[in-house]
């Protein structure tokens, strides 16, 4: 249990990513060790951005249709959404620094009002 909001169900996923917050979804599976190793990095990066950044996770084994729809080909995959639109994606393990470098330009960009 990572503690991130579970958006595995398609209906929940659609609703959450359509929201106004910058949202990162970690696509993972129970058996993916590297996926679990990402969690502390994501927690650390999310600290201080609780009101502007939402971090969620979806299990691709439990919803293969969602994984197909988003063209998930390897785990973990991180996809960043804003108002329903994909803003970027990363595959594989990421350090906190890599995540900060990925998120900061978008979080601090002109189209992010938070």
């Amino acid at each position: 249990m990572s503690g991130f909001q579970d958006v595995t169900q398609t209906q929940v996923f659609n609703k959450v990513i359509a929201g106004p917050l910058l949202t990162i979804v970690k696509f993972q599976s129970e058996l993916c060790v590297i996926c679990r190793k990402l969690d502390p990095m994501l927690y650390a990066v999310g600290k201080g951005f609780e009101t502007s950044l939402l971090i969620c996770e979806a299990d691709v084994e439990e919803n293969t249709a969602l994984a197909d729809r988003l063209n998930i080909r390897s785990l973990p995959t991180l996809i960043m959404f804003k108002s329903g639109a994909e803003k970027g994606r990363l595959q594989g393990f990421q350090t906190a620094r890599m995540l900060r470098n990925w998120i900061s330009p978008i979080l601090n960009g002109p189209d992010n009002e938070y």
Partner: protein
Amino acid sequence: MQGFEPFIELVDVNDATGDRKSLYDDLERVRGKGRVSNLFKAYGAFPELGIANFKRLTVLLSRGTLSEKLKEAVMTALAVINHCDYCVSFHGSQLQSLGSSDQEIAAAREFDAEQIEFSPKEKALFEYAMKANGDAHSITPEDIRICRELGTTDAEFVEILETVNTGNAFNTFAGALNIGADDFLTYAMDEYHEKKAAANS
């Protein structure tokens, strides 16, 4: 719920005999009187391994060319990753004794080497350590090139990777045997006791 007691016996310094006493004597000679950590009291159940591991730790921390601050910062970060509250307090205390500020220790706990007074090479090696720990096979020639251009030697790659190995090994040991924090630690002990109490409530 783990409870507060370690899962194996930790023999007090005053009750140690034989090889166990030799291990404790080694620890006190290097660290000072009364500073036999609970981790190494657990190793006392298999003193030869305890002695070998303490030698490994002593070589890692006192030899080599990388700063002790870098190695302790990496081990602090690993302790967070491995949910080892004892190890966070232990390595945080070590960083305090090396002169690190609370802000720097907090930065290590958030894997943010940019906020720690490190040289560019140390920042690159901290990042390399985090990446190697997360997925060793994700290290690329570019990662190596960045460290090399900042002056990292072959021996220093070995030194930082051994820091990762040692940190993880001790975190596993402390967690799986439910080993509690030492009385002589100074960093975040209130936080440690609160977490322990919450886990056992």
